[in-house]
């Protein structure tokens, strides 16, 4: 079981020499590294909340890199995958990109290319994890609203005026104003525009 909480570079490659060399190279860059000789061994050890990125060999006996990528997708793991592949694997690399791979590198590669991609992948992972965390917060706040407040929120994001809302909800305009203030307060929104953006992001994540 992986217990590290700091962002880690995971390497899955069946070739011992490639694995070992990547480990040392990443270590020399001061990055925490964990290596695995096969896809199933990685899957057994990895938890989706573990931050970092994954360097994955496309061609492996047993479960291939592509199959591992699909397994991760099914589990909702957001970890960015950098595929490494040989010359003959371009069609596989294209397929990997179509399935949401972060990038791919052709073997052998320059260290700077690897470093650039690993750094970008790590940044992307951090950003997406921040976003996820943020969205989690928004959802929590959303869940604290009452049914009536949710109705008001829905009408607010449609840009309805208080008078129109009062008419649609069959309440007084003053009541609408009170609900509205409670929504802004609970959602921690400083402006209507910020509230709308939060809702769009939630909706977007729901895709």
């Amino acid at each position, binding site marked *: 079981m992986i217990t590290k909480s700091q962002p880690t570079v995971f390497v899955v490659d069946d070739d011992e*020499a490639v694995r070992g060399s*990547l480990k*040392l190279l990443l270590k*020399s860059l001061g990055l925490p590294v964990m290596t695995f000789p096969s896809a199933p061994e990685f899957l057994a050890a990895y938890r989706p909340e573990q931050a970092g990125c994954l360097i994955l060999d496309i061609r492996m*006996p*047993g479960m291939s890199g592509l199959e591992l990528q699909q397994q991760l997708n099914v589990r909702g793991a957001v970890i960015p995958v950098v595929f490494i592949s*040989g010359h003959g694997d371009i069609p596989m690399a294209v397929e990997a990109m179509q399935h949401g791979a972060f990038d791919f590198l052709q073997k052998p590669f320059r*260290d700077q290319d690897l470093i650039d991609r690993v750094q970008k992948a790590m940044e992307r992972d951090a950003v997406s994890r921040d976003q996820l965390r943020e969205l989690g917060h928004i959802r929590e706040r959303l869940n604290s609203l009452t049914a009536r407040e949710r109705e008001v929120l829905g009408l607010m994001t449609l840009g309805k005026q208080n008078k129109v809302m009062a008419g649609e909800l069959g309440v007084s305009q003053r009541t609408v104003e009170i609900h509205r203030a409670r929504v802004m307060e609970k959602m921690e929104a400083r402006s209507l525009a910020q509230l709308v953006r939060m809702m769009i992001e939630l909706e977007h994540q729901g895709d």
Partner: protein
Amino acid sequence: MSDRPAPEAFELQALLDAAVDAVVLINHRGIIEVFNHSATRLFGYGSDEVLGRNVKILMTASDSERHDSHLENHVRTGIPHIIGTAREVQARRKDGSLFPAFLSVGRISGCDPPRFVGFLQDLTLQKHALAAVQRESDRAAQYLEAAQTMLVALDLTHRVTLINRKGCEVLGCEEKTLLGANWFDRVVPSDQRRKVAIEMDALAERTPDRPHYSEYSVTATSGELRLIAWRCVALHDDTGAVTGILCSGDDVTDSRRAEKEATETRERMMHVSRLATMGEMASGISHELNQPLTAIANYAHACVRLLASPDADLIDVREALTQISGQALRAGEIIRRLRALVRKQSTQHEQADLNELIKELDALARADARSSDVRIILNLGADLPHVSLDRIQIQQVLLNLLRNSIDALESIPCGHREVTICTATDGAGDVIVEIADTGTGIAVDILPHLFTPFATNKALGTGLGLAISRTIVEAHRGRLEYRANKPRGAVFIVTLPSEQGISG
């Protein structure tokens, strides 16, 4: 002598009759006085028929004409004409027929006028025998001339004593220009001259009846070299002494050239087929090369970075450098094997351990198999006898069979794709290699054409693989066979004879 009494007349008659030769005694006028038993048999006359008659009746017309004058001259002058010398004459029988005879005439001295005795030997049989010998000799000469083989006889100083028409034909010159010429100086190229002459001299000294086989070229008058396969025997005289050498030679220039071309064509085909197999494997092999290259690049980059930091861990650096050299060798080894297989070279047989051969092949095949997600299982028998083989060609066969198996596994789900290579010895001491897969097997309608060139069921196949493989295995005096695997798949069996198997 004088003590002994003179022989009685009957004793003389008995002596005369016992003589093998015809004895005829005449007086100075040619009248026959004695005619012995052999004479009556030879001429067909009874002695009473000839006694008192002139000896001319026993001669041809031309001899009888001259006989009187010869006789008269001799009696008169005493100069011998035919006396004391022997000669061949024609004699006439009673029936008028003639026969060859050897005649010697002696003069009986101590009587006057002189008398003469003639001894005649029938040459008819000898003549026949001689004619037969002549005919044989003529026929031999004819054979010599008609032979499609060069025949050359040399004396002990290497001079040509005989050369037949074919010999002259190949050399493009006339018999008379060769007879008496030094054979080696005249026709053997200078670079081979010494070696061949030594061989010939050794032959002359060897025990007889052992022909010596050799091949050397001769230079025709046109300057063209012709390769001749020679069979040489020593020639002996009656006493058994060596008098020379007789060589028969076949011009093998054209057949050797054809053989060489056929071999080259076959080797070219094998090479093309190997290249085709290599082409099919290229993706897997390039992947296999990329692995060590990637590792080397990574380790080197790591070293650079480690050394750039002030508190570098030198143990890490040393480990990286060790790995670099190891991986470079790994890449080199793959290239070496690849080169060996792709190289075009003529057949070279050597004693080899098939297990070693398969292990060597495994490195290349594994890359290919890996990319197709096929597992190769080696099940190599212990104590395999060595086999005389051409490494490249047998590796080509095994690689080809392995490729076929890998292709046959394409439609099988991942995780069930297996090829097993087994080696073993059979009861006869032959070495067996079995390549078995769990693929789709060979369809029944394809089986009869399985080893036929250009019959393929692979989309990208040349259809040459199995045909060439079988040719190669059979050239090794082995067999390539197929049987179905159980529960499914194909098994190809290569059987190669080992030294042990041959002797046992």
